[in-house]
């Protein structure tokens, strides 16, 4: 992406509301004309969850959905930063930086989009769904979680649920659910969009490869800045042009053939 088309802005934006949609899973809605105007599915914002030195660094969140001038973040409370963000109230101002990263590449000759999300990695899928529906793509969404109480199918369409413990839907991993689907249905030209834990993405990329389906993956990386400055979030490349790409500026979305997942 050339730098001239970036629209990165740092701003204090207000919390519209906040709710706990499942156990430990929160939706925080924020108002920003800038972010809702310029963000695309797959991009993220870097959020200062507190205002002191604990936590020190921003936390990256993919943009889950955009509605008018409101954007949604969906996240699990996993540590201090997410706990602080989850405790913000209506009207509180949140320091955000974004939109950051390269969006999903939704172009290509396909009729059906297979959206595959594991756990809270599925956060960017509603935003992607909106965009793909506008492109008149048929959508199948494979959503997996450890257990039924960790599933949030909000704003997703064509749901195929799977749980590791079998408490709802297909008993097994989300990638196994996709494999089963592909073994039974292959009428359309397809493209896969995956987001979730690295191990799941690795399995997903292997399935896409063996089935010959194009596959876009959204990665997570430990990053400090989110803007390509700290060099903290390398992912190994396959092409040999250079060893690493940075997840924050060359991703977080990649074609599955571009990168090596470990």
């Amino acid at each position, binding site marked *: 992406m050339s730098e001239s088309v970036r629209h*990165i802005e740092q701003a204090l934006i207000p919390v519209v509301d906040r709710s706990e949609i499942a156990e430990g899973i929160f939706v925080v809605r924020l108002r920003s004309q800038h972010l809702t105007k310029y963000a695309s599915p797959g991009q993220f914002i870097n959020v200062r969850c507190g205002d002191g*030195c604990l936590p*020190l660094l921003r936390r990256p969140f993919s943009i889950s959905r955009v509605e008018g001038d409101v954007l949604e973040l969906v996240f699990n409370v996993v540590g201090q930063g997410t706990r602080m963000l989850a405790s913000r109230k209506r009207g509180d101002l949140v320091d955000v930086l974004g939109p950051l990263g390269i969006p999903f590449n939704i172009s290509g000759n396909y009729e059906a989009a297979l959206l595959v999300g594991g756990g809270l990695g599925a956060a960017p899928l509603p935003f992607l769904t909106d965009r793909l529906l506008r492109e008149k793509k048929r959508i199948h969404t494979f959503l997996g979680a450890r257990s039924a109480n960790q599933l949030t199918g909000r704003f997703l369409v064509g749901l195929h649920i799977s749980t590791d413990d079998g408490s709802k839907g297909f008993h097994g991993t989300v990638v196994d659910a996709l494999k089963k689907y592909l073994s039974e249905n292959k009428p359309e030209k397809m493209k896969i969009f995956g987001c979730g834990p690295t191990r799941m993405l690795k399995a997903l990329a292997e399935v896409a490869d063996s089935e010959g389906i194009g596959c876009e993956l959204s990665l997570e990386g430990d990053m400090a800045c989110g*803007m390509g400055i700290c060099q903290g*979030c*390398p992912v190994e490349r396959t092409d040999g042009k250079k*060893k690493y790409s940075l997840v924050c500026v060359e991703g977080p979305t990649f074609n599955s053939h571009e990168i090596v997942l470990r």
Partner: protein
Amino acid sequence: MKESFSIRGVEFKNRVLVASGTFGYGDELRDVVDVNALGGICTKSLSWKPRDGNPPRRIVETPSGMLNSIGLANIGVHTFIQQKLPYLRTLDTVIIANIAASSVQEYCDVLALLDGEEGVDGYEINVSCPNVKEGGLNFGTNREMTCEITAKLRALTKKPLIVKLTPNVTHISEFARAAEGAGADAVSVMNTLIGLAVDIHARKPKLSTITGGLSGPAIKPIALAKVYEVAQAVKIPILGIGGIMTADDAVEFLMVGATAVQVGTASFIDPAAGMKVALGLKAFAEKQGLADVGELVGAMESNVKVSILQSWL
């Protein structure tokens, strides 16, 4: 209000620079912040050949700080000259090329190549990277090597030569004296402290290289003590570095003897942190009724004649 200062005839418009490795090559944030509001930019460390850097994981947050093990990932000096320097020449701020190398000869080669180019105003020599096997700390923890590198580079350039020191030694002031004696125009105090974090569930180090460099507000009191120690030992300017988040932090560094400061980790959180510190520093000096921000340098007063630190040195 006078904000500027000079090193070897190069004038910095204010006393706040951004630290090497925390602001890329100076062009990444051109559409996000006004880099011309900075006193100067220290580039990401440059080596002769490009370096891939260390495998992930490279970053771990720790209380009020972060550990990094980037491993000097950089595009190499040739690509820097080709792709980055043309833009940097258009900026109205001082450009300090930071140089890292795994041999004395490599330091010399990189500096000599840059010295023939317009747009580089001075050099900061990284003899203190804790995250590479060759070079780095091997040089920075060895006084003779620090001397040799400084002297050889001094002979190659008339531009300002700044040596960036590591705190991972017993007496940093001895290394500052060595650099001063070998012809350095200034010293940067300090690089990161070696640190470690453990994933107790996996029983593994969190960083791929086990140890990394600790930065951020967690190290500020240590950095202040190191700057103070060095200020007692040398006459050349000190660029104070270590956990500066606000203008008040910068004032502390000036008061213990830093001529100027570098803002590092703070830029990861707020890319405009350096500019805000510069503005705040000016505002503080104005409020104090000073005519020159430089009046703050060494302004800390104490009734104690000989500090515990000095009696231990």
